[in-house]
C-alpha cells in the first residue's frame, strides 16, 4: 500500500477539513496574485498612458515643426538693412533710423545676384511736427518694392504710395476725423488721403506714408534713405550670418539686423509648448509613480498579513486533523510505521493543499485583480508568478503543517491504544 492512497482517501473522507485548508491557501494566493496583478495593470496602464502622451506630444511638436518650417519658408526673416553708423539704441528709442545712406544702395542690392534676399523696400523716415496740424508724426517715404532684375518679379507684397497721395495711421485720421478721399496739406503740399489704416497698436498709428521722392523733398534729403527692409528672405537654414555676409559683400557700409519676426515668436512658442508637454509627461509619470508606491505599500502590508493568517489557519486545521486521527496514528505506529512516515502523511496532504490552492488561487487572484484593475487581457497572465506561487504556496502549507505533523509523529501511541 502506498502512503499517497491513504492521503487521498483521507482527503476524500474529511472534505471539510481539506476544503477549509484549501480555501485558506486559495485566499492567500489570490490576495498575492490579485495585488500583484493590480500592480501589473497599473504599470501597463501607466506605460500606455505615458507613451500615448509622448506620442501625442511628438505629433504636436511635429505639427509645430512643420508649421515653423512652412512659415520660415514663406516669410523667412524680416531684415533691416541700415547705415553702418546707425546706433541701434537710437533706432529702438526713436522708433526709426535717423542715419542716412544713398538710395542707390537698393538698386545695387537689387542688381546683385542675391540668393537669400527678396522684396526690397527702401524707406526714409523722420519724426517731425506736422506744421499744419500741430502733431508729432513719423513721416515715412516709401517707394514700393524694388524688383530683383534677375528674378521673376512676382506680385509686390507692399504697394507703393502713388505720388500726391497720403496714407494715415489710425491715431491721426481718427483724432482729426479725416476720411479717405479728403485732402490734407503737409508742409504746404496738398495730398489726397488714399487710405486710413486700421489700428495697429504701434508707431504705425502715428505714421504718415507718402511717396519716397516727395518725402525726400519735404525733408530736404534728396537721394537718401534710412533703411532697406528685406522681406521673405530665403535663408540658408536659420543662419543670419550668411545673409549678412551676402549683404556686406554688396553694400560694405551697412549693417543688417533682424526684426522681431513672427517666425521667432512661433519658434519660441513651439519650444515653450514642447517644454510644457514634457513637463506634463514628467508630472504624469511622477503621479503614476506615487500611485504605484501607494499600491505597493498596501500590498506590502496585505501580503504578509494574509500569508501569516493563512499559515496560522492551516496550522490549526492540521492540529484538528491530527486530533481526529489519533487512533489511526496509534494503529499505524503499532503495525510498525515509522515516525517520519506518519509526518509524511500530513506533509503530503499539505503539499496537495498548497499545489491545488496555488493553481486555484492564482486564477482567482488574476480574475479579481483583473476585474478590480479594469483590465482583462492576456498581458496580465504571468507565468513566472504562477511558478512562484506553485513553489511558495506548498512551502507555506508545509511550514504550517510541520508542527502538527511533528505532534502526530511524536504522539505516544500507548495512550490512544489503551482506551476502551
Amino acid at each position, binding site marked *: 500500500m502506498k502512503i499517497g492512497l*491513504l492521503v487521498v482517501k483521507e482527503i476524500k*473522507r474529511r472534505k471539510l477539513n481539506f476544503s477549509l485548508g484549501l480555501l485558506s491557501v486559495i485566499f492567500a494566493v489570490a490576495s498575492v496574485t490579485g495585488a500583484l496583478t493590480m500592480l501589473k495593470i497599473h504599470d501597463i496602464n501607466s506605460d500606455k498612458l505615458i507613451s500615448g502622451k509622448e506620442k501625442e506630444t511628438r505629433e504636436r511638436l511635429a505639427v509645430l515643426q512643420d508649421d515653423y518650417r512652412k512659415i520660415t519658408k514663406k516669410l523667412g526673416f524680416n531684415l533691416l538693412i541700415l547705415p553702418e553708423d546707425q546706433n541701434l539704441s537710437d533706432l529702438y528709442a526713436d522708433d526709426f533710423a535717423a542715419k542716412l545712406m544713398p538710395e542707390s544702395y537698393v538698386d545695387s542690392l537689387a542688381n546683385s545676384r542675391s540668393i537669400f534676399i527678396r522684396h526690397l523696400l527702401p524707406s526714409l523716415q523722420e519724426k517731425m511736427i506736422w506744421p499744419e496740424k500741430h502733431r508729432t508724426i513719423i513721416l515715412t517715404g516709401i517707394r514700393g518694392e524694388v524688383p530683383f532684375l534677375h528674378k521673376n518679379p512676382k506680385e509686390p507684397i507692399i504697394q507703393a504710395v502713388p505720388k500726391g497721395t497720403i496714407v494715415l495711421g489710425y491715431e491721426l485720421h481718427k483724432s482729426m476725423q479725416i476720411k479717405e478721399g479728403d485732402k490734407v496739406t503737409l508742409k504746404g503740399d496738398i495730398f489726397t488721403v488714399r487710405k486710413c489704416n486700421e489700428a495697429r497698436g504701434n508707431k504705425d498709428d502715428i505714421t504718415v506714408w507718402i511717396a519716397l521722392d516727395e518725402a525726400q523733398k519735404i525733408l530736404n534729403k534728396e537721394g537718401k534713405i534710412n533703411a532697406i527692409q528685406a522681406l521673405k528672405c530665403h535663408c540658408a537654414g536659420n543662419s543670419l550670418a550668411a545673409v549678412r555676409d551676402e549683404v556686406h559683400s554688396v553694400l560694405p557700409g551697412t549693417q543688417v539686423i533682424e526684426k522681431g519676426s513672427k517666425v521667432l515668436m512661433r519658434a519660441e512658442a513651439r519650444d515653450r509648448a514642447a517644454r510644457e508637454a514634457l513637463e506634463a509627461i514628467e508630472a504624469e509619470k511622477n503621479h503614476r509613480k506615487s500611485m504605484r508606491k501607494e499600491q505597493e505599500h498596501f500590498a506590502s502590508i496585505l501580503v504578509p498579513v494574509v500569508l501569516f493568517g493563512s499559515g496560522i489557519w492551516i496550522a490549526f486545521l492540521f492540529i484538528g486533523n491530527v486530533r481526529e486521527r489519533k487512533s489511526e496514528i496509534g494503529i499505524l505506529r503499532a*503495525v510498525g510505521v515509522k515516525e517520519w512516515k506518519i509526518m509524511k502523511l500530513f506533509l503530503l496532504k499539505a503539499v496537495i493543499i498548497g499545489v491545488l490552492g496555488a493553481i486555484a488561487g492564482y486564477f482567482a487572484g488574476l480574475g479579481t485583480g483583473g476585474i478590480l484593475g479594469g483590465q482583462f487581457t492576456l498581458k496580465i497572465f504571468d507565468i513566472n508568478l504562477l511558478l512562484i506561487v506553485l513553489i511558495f504556496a506548498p512551502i507555506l502549507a508545509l511550514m504550517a503543517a510541520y508542527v502538527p505533523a511533528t505532534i502526530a509523529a511524536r504522539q505516544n501511541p*500507548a495512550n490512544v491504544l489503551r482506551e476502551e
Partner: protein
Amino acid sequence: MEGKSDCMIEINNVTKTYTKGNAKVKALDNVSISAAKGEFVVVKGSSGCGKTTLLLIAGGLLQPDSGSIKINSQEINKLSQENLAEFRADNIGFVFQQYHLIPYLSILENVNIPSLAHQTNNTEARAIELIEDLGLKRRMLHTPAELSAGEKQRTALARALLYDPAVILADEITGNLDEKNALIVLEKLTEYTNSGGTVLLVTHDDKVIKFADRVVELKAEE
C-alpha cells in the same frame, strides 16, 4: 537450555508506574511472563490490574520503569525508535478490543495497512486470502462503519496476521463479541499457534481459557 531457544516472549521483572499529577498508580509490579514458540498464553486478571499496560510494554509501545522484554530473542527495550518500529512490523501483530480500524479505508485496505511499514508490499493476495478465511469476503470493499463488532474484530485479526508475525499480542479481543464471533477469532488464533505462532492474550473473560495452552493470573496491585 532448550527452553531458552524455544522462548518467544520473555517478560522479566517489569514494573510500570503511571504518574498523574501527584497521584502515582502502580500498574505493574515486578511482573514476569514468558511464552514459548507455538504457545497460546492467556493472561487473566480483573479490570485495572494492568493487562493492557503489560501488552503495550511487551509490544514496545510503552517503556517499562524497569525490567526487560525479549521477543523472538531480541531485547526490544534496547532498540532505537526506528529499529523498534521495524522490529514490530516484522515480528508482532496487535489486536485490540477497540479494533482501531481506519474509518476511511475499505476492509481490504485496512487489512493491508501493515504493508505501509514494509518494503515489499504486494500483500493484497494474502489480504484477500485472510479476509475470505475469516468470512469477510462480501465485506471486503465496505468501510468499518458498515461492519458489525465481530466483523470489525475479524478484520483487525486479519490485519495482525498479514505478515505472519512471530507473536500476536491480543487485548480483550472477545470483549465486544457474541459467542459465534468470539469462536471464529479464537479458532483462528489457535490455528495460528498450531502453525508455530505465539499468542499472548490478556482478558478477564473465562470463555477464553479453554483455548489456552497456559493461563497466567495477573494480580492487581494495592
